[in-house]
């Protein structure tokens, strides 16, 4: 497919604004009469609020109001950034209140102070006395499921959701019976946190006409609007949500975290603006996390290495509230089946469990970094036991083009895995290195490893996929592009602008994208999640742009007395198709559309697109590492991610997405973990000093490569790219550790402590 603007590394629409400080984030726009709020967070992990004494706080100068669970107008609401379901059985669990008298994790929200400034609000929190009745708490999912465990949510048995399926023509027991070997592993990944650089922040006020306005750093403005409507029992038309420029989200802002609270506050303050800006410490342990998951994985393998039967039980630690419910552990099940389809049968059982940990929900790639680590580690373990080359084992078992997914009904149209594996082998000089690094001894050892994955671009058929776009052509032939899809830092504004320019036939610079998403103005779209926006929103842009182009050519043909079918657009000009001759400029036609005395009719389109398909993206990572056996420290000699995301819409931005995903996966692999005191349930490392996200000094040089099959279901041949880079890197590093040392590390993170203990157990080192 030949493109003019798609695929070009054009500069981001918002880059200049962001290097000059002109970009306005939520906190940068506060009205002058702003009030500020801080939240009193529980100092116990599980229990009941028996009494709150707010009298001393209320008496403090500068304090306007103290809110408790007993004096606020808020009902229960769900928080997940999912489209609303018309089927009550599929609606998200509404288990949250703006403030709670039932504490379910350390730091749960029990009271709030509204004051003239943040410092006053913070001081007033210390004057609030709370009496609690404590209950036993559970930090481990399987502990919370034990007989007799106290229910964290009444009637739930501590299960948020239970996913099961069996697929295959053969009974699962018979399938395992046909296998020559059966391999089992217990694998475990830790909870981690998004640590987007801008903390959650929102403010709300009521306009003179009585409408509630919420300005929020959110990925999902239209969903936030609906959830606030549920929480406050207020008509959706009375609510307006504005999303300014966003300082990162990664799924943490795909939940409704602060919006209901600021809405309640302004309602209680007669509409005066009230802001709540979280501290970093609150943001790490009191917003959302990536689920920690324990996997019991079993594979039945034929002598030649072919997987005949697969079975997985997964326990996802969902934390204190349902948030995204069982959809993440459900997605894990779909992925388990798809990436390496078993010849005979596959069985899955996934539990999403309430515990008293921080709330787990969406984080970049929605369960797939978890299952990809487990799967890829398990595959390498099998390869080692069977003495088969791990890449050959992958090639023999990995999913292929044309595969029809029996769970989702989606067919894989394009699959770059064979090319990805080939590139990874070449990059690592695999065959030579595998030999060179075999049977090493000594204190410094080297290894190579790789991992692959598959990844659905959008959420279909699990959820509705809908996106809206509006294009209005200006008098000079430039256009305004408005969408409900949100720019959160990933570059959506830029690639949507490229799409509009491509299809209308005008220069990229002539497209203005409104980066603030205002639910009063922006067409409906469910927002930034999955890797859906360029796929679903992209389809809407293409539809609107085609309509604009059609109107443009219709007007041109009338004005120029030429056949419409003979005309086309190119780089802002109207041209003749046969000889490329310019017959008018787009600007000429646009100006006429505004001011023609008889036929003025501005050129615009306002469309909605739905998608009832899903493009499956693929990728892999390859690592060459060096380990110091004495310290358990890993250094990188080489690290690459290779992606099949279909057409790459902007190579410079795409590389940036991949680098960021690799960095997040490096943290997952080596250093990041949410730690809780086992005796009290208190978070131990909810700050940037003790929570070890990779710094510049921890991050090696990152290589990126793409294979680009044209995906027929994508509007421009494109598939997922936003999330996939976070998936494979950790497993590739883990498999390099296995190759270097022969030690199977089935847990993350592989920090020096973990590696030291594993090497000690394997007898590779001795305790000093």
């Amino acid at each position, binding site marked *: 497919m030949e493109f003019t603007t798609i695929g070009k*590394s054009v*500069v*981001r629409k*918002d*880059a*200049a*604004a*962001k*290097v*000059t*400080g002109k*970009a*306005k*984030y939520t*906190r*940068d726009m506060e009205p002058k009469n702003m009030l500020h709020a801080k939240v009193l967070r529980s100092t116990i992990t599980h229990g009941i609020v028996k009494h709150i004494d707010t009298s001393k706080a209320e008496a403090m100068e500068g304090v306007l109001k103290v809110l408790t669970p007993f004096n606020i107008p808020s009902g229960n609401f769900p928080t997940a950034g999912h489209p609303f379901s018309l089927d009550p059985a599929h609606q998200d669990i509404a288990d949250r209140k703006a403030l709670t008298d039932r504490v379910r994790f350390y730091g749960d929200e029990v009271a709030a102070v509204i004051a003239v400034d943040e410092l006053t609000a913070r001081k007033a929190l210390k004057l609030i006395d709370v009496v609690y009745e404590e209950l036993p708490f559970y930090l481990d999912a399987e502990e919370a499921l034990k007989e007799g465990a106290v229910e964290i949510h009444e009637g739930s048995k501590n299960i948020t959701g239970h996913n099961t399926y069996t697929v295959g023509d053969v009974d699962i027991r018979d399938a395992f019976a046909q296998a020559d070997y059966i391999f089992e592993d217990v694998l475990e990944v830790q909870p981690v946190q*998004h*640590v*987007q*650089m*801008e*903390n959650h922040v929102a403010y709300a006020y009521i306009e003179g006409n009585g409408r509630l306005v919420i300005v929020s750093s959110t990925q999902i403005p239209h969903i936030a609007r609906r959830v606030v409507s549920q929480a406050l029992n207020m008509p959706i038309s009375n609510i307006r949500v504005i999303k300014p*420029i*966003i*300082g*990162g989200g*990664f799924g943490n802002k795909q939940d409704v975290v602060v919006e209901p609270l600021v809405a309640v506050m302004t309602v209680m303050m007669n509409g005066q603006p009230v802001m709540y800006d979280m*501290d*970093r410490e609150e943001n790490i342990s009191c917003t959302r996390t990536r689920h920690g998951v324990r996997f019991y994985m079993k594979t039945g393998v034929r002598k030649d290495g072919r997987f005949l039967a697969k079975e997985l039980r997964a326990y996802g630690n969902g934390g204190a509230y349902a948030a995204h419910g069982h959809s993440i552990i459900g997605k894990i099940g779909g992925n388990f089946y798809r990436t390496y389809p078993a010849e005979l049968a596959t069985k899955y059982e996934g539990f999403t469990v309430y515990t008293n940990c921080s709330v787990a929900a969406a984080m970049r790639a929605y369960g797939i970094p978890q299952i990809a680590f487990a799967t890829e580690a398990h595959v390498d373990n099998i390869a080692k036991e069977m003495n088969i080359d791990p890449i050959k084992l992958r090639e023999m078992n990995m999913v292929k083009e044309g595969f029809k997914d029996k769970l989702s009904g989606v067919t894989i149209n394009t699959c770059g895995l064979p090319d990805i594996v080939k590139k990874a082998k070449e990059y690592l000089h695999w065959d030579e290195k595998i030999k060179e690094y075999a049977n090493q001894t000594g204190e410094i050892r080297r290894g190579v490893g790789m991992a692959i994955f598959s990844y659905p671009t959008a959420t279909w058929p699990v959820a509705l996929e809908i996106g809206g776009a509006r294009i209005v052509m200006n008098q000079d032939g430039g256009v305004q592009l408005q969408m409900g899809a949100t720019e*959160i*830092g*990933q*570059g959506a504004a830029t690639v949507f602008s490229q799409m509009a320019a491509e299809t209308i036939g005008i220069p990229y610079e002539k497209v203005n994208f409104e980066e603030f998403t205002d639910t009063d103005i922006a067409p409906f779209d469910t927002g930034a999640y999955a890797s859906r926006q360029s796929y679903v929103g992209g389809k809407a842009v293409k539809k609107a742009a085609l309509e604009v182009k059609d109107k443009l050519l219709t007007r041109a043909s009338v004005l120029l007395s030429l056949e419409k079918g003979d005309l086309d657009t190119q780089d802002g000009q109207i041209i003749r198709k046969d000889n490329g001759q310019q017959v008018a400029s787009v600007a000429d036609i646009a100006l006429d559309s505004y001011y023609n005395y008889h036929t003025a009719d501005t050129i615009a389109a306002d469309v909605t697109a739905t998608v009832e398909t899903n493009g499956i993206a693929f990728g892999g990572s390859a690592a060459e590492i060096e380990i110091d056996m004495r310290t358990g420290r890993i250094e990188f000699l080489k690290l690459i991610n290779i992606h099949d995301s279909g057409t790459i819409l902007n190579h*410079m*931005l795409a*590389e*940036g997405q991949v*680098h*960021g*995903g*690799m*960095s*997040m996966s*490096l943290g997952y692999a080596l250093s990041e973990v949410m730690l809780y005191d086992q005796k009290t349930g208190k978070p131990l490392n909810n*700050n*940037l*000093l003790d929570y070890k*996200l*990779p*710094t*510049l*000094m921890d*991050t090696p*040089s*990152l290589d990126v490569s793409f294979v680009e099959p044209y995906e027929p279901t994508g509007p421009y041949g494109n598939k997922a790219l936003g999330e996939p880079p976070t998936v494979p890197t950790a497993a590739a590093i883990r498999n390099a550790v296995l190759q270097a040392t022969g030690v199977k590390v089935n847990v993350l993170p592989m920090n020096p402590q973990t590696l030291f203990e594993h090497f000690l157990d394997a007898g590779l080192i001795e305790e000093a």
Partner: protein
Amino acid sequence: MLKKITMTVNGVKRTVEIDVRESLLDVLRDKLGLTSVKQGCGVGECGACAVLIDGVSINTCIYLASWADGKEIRTVEGLEQDGKLSSVQQAFVDGGAVQCGFCIPGFVISATELKEKKQSYSREEIRRALSGHLCRCTGYQKIVEATEKALEED
């Protein structure tokens, strides 16, 4: 306790009344409207609030405003000249170093400090010099490359 301080901010002499306990971050944002100065942690861990104080990149969340009395302060709002981005800003834009952008003013400030020292730096030295800034979007790769490019230019 309130106190008057005088600083040169992006080339303009400014006298402001401050609470002696206030951070320079709060004064620059709330009293002077310089919203490029971002708060990511409030305790000197992330580097998003760095500005140039007498040419040195410093985290303003842990720098008292009263210490800035008599000092020269520069933020990214003051780096453009004659409608043109500085070489560091331009390199960040052209090199795709910007994603969500929340950490970017801090990185631009530290890269500008390096640029103004007029020395040559190895990539490793650049990495070390910028390592006080956290970024979750970019894996730092294009930030380092853009800084390297800006430092190579005259």
